[in-house]
């Protein structure tokens, strides 16, 4: 039986992620866990997370999970969600500059800084909170059955700037274009919350429970 480890490092609403997985796949064995051996032994791994990046990184380090995450993110079907996506990058401007896991090159930025640099007025409030559409920039097994330009639920003040097409599977626009989905080999990571995005989000999670980790 396939096991999905949802990494519990004290950040955020893990119950929703676990319940959503059980909802889309009643045979899924979902383990909400901080135990390295359970995470290493799982068939699939999810790194969720809400809150601040410094707290996220320090909790991962305190629980000695940063190495485990780097390891499983190289070999298993891996889904990062929200802060769990931002943590994959090299660093974040949040909390005065925070080093992250460095699995994907780039720097996480604050919307206000992005708007200022682009010389544009803020298109609305920060955090970017609510439903926005995601353009699928390329095909991917996790997009199967999910229509292009579907609406997903976002809540974040920091964003991942556009990365190369080889690292990106989805883009959204809030004043400026930003990376909504990172995809590379066995890694898929979303800025939005699929577990809170009703039908479209559940479709994506259902695809994840069946994904073999290839593009």
């Amino acid at each position: 039986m396939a096991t999905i480890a949802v990494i519990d490092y004290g950040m955020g609403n893990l119950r929703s992620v676990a319940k959503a997985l059980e909802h889309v796949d009643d045979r899924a064995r979902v383990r909400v866990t901080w135990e390295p051996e359970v995470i290493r032994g799982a068939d699939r791994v999810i790194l969720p997370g809400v809150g601040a990046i410094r707290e996220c990184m320090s909790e991962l380090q305190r629980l000695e999970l940063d190495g485990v995450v780097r390891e499983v993110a190289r070999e298993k079907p891996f889904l990062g969600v929200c802060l769990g996506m931002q943590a994959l990058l090299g660093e974040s401007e949040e909390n005065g500059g925070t080093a992250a896991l460095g699995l994907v090159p780039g720097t996480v930025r604050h919307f206000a800084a992005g708007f200022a640099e682009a010389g544009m007025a803020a298109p609305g409030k920060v955090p970017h909170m609510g439903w926005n559409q995601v353009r699928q920039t390329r095909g991917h097994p996790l997009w199967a059955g999910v229509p292009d330009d579907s609406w997903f639920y976002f809540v974040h003040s920091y964003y991942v700037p556009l990365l190369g097409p080889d690292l990106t599977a989805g883009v959204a626009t809030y004043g400026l274009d930003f990376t909504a989905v990172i995809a590379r080999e066995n890694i898929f990571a979303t800025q939005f919350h699929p577990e809170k995005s009703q039908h479209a989000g559940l479709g994506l999670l259902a695809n994840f429970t069946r994904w073999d980790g290839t593009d």
Partner: protein
Amino acid sequence: MTLAKRIIPCLDVDAGRVVKGVRFVDIRDAGDPVEVARRYDQAGADEITFLDITASSDDRETLVQVVEAVAAEVFMPLTVGGGIRTPADIRRMLNAGADKVGINTAAIHQPEFVEDAAERFGSQCIVVAIDAKRVSDPGEPPRWEVFTHGGRRSTGLDAVAWAQRMAHCGAGEILLTSMDRDGTREGFDLELTRAVSDAVTVPVIASGGVGGLQHLVDGVVEGRADAVLAASIFHFGEHTIAEAKAYMAARGVTVRMQEAP
């Protein structure tokens, strides 16, 4: 392609049942929270808010169970407000499956609670609820104060300044209720909504007074709210969420149209 304005049905919950007060006096029963939440999920509501109006702490435990039951079936953002006073209350609701908690009176008694909560749990899950009432006389520049106890007790705090202070403390969102309009069906207090929305950088949810679909449009266009909260027009089947969204879209408001499941 941009961020959609949100429609949020609000469910008042007392001892595990959904109720809606009209001016907080004449209360009618609108059903089982899980059933209502599921119906709103299918109908394409953008979020759901539970407001706990229970007085006793025993019944508050009931709400935790309600949130757990709803979060196991409904995969959309859930906010829970009412009686949130300590970090333990927040933790309990988030663990039950809530995405955000609404803090009202506790913020007034202890503003640092909001700062602490935002630091600990992240601003994204901290909604500060403000109950405001107009205190200026007609003809004067409008001014509103923050009220507690269902609009009966003034705190003397200026509502706009208070919203700014709360956003500064780390509130990720402001839920703004006009106590003058709540239950009246006369529409939002648009001057209040706009004054607060223009004064803070975080999203504002307009609440209090929705009696028809044009009120929702007015709330976002004239009030500049990011989301609109309503109860009775949806709970009693006068309008569906889809009708509300079609109405708003036809008037140029960006809304999320539900994809067929």
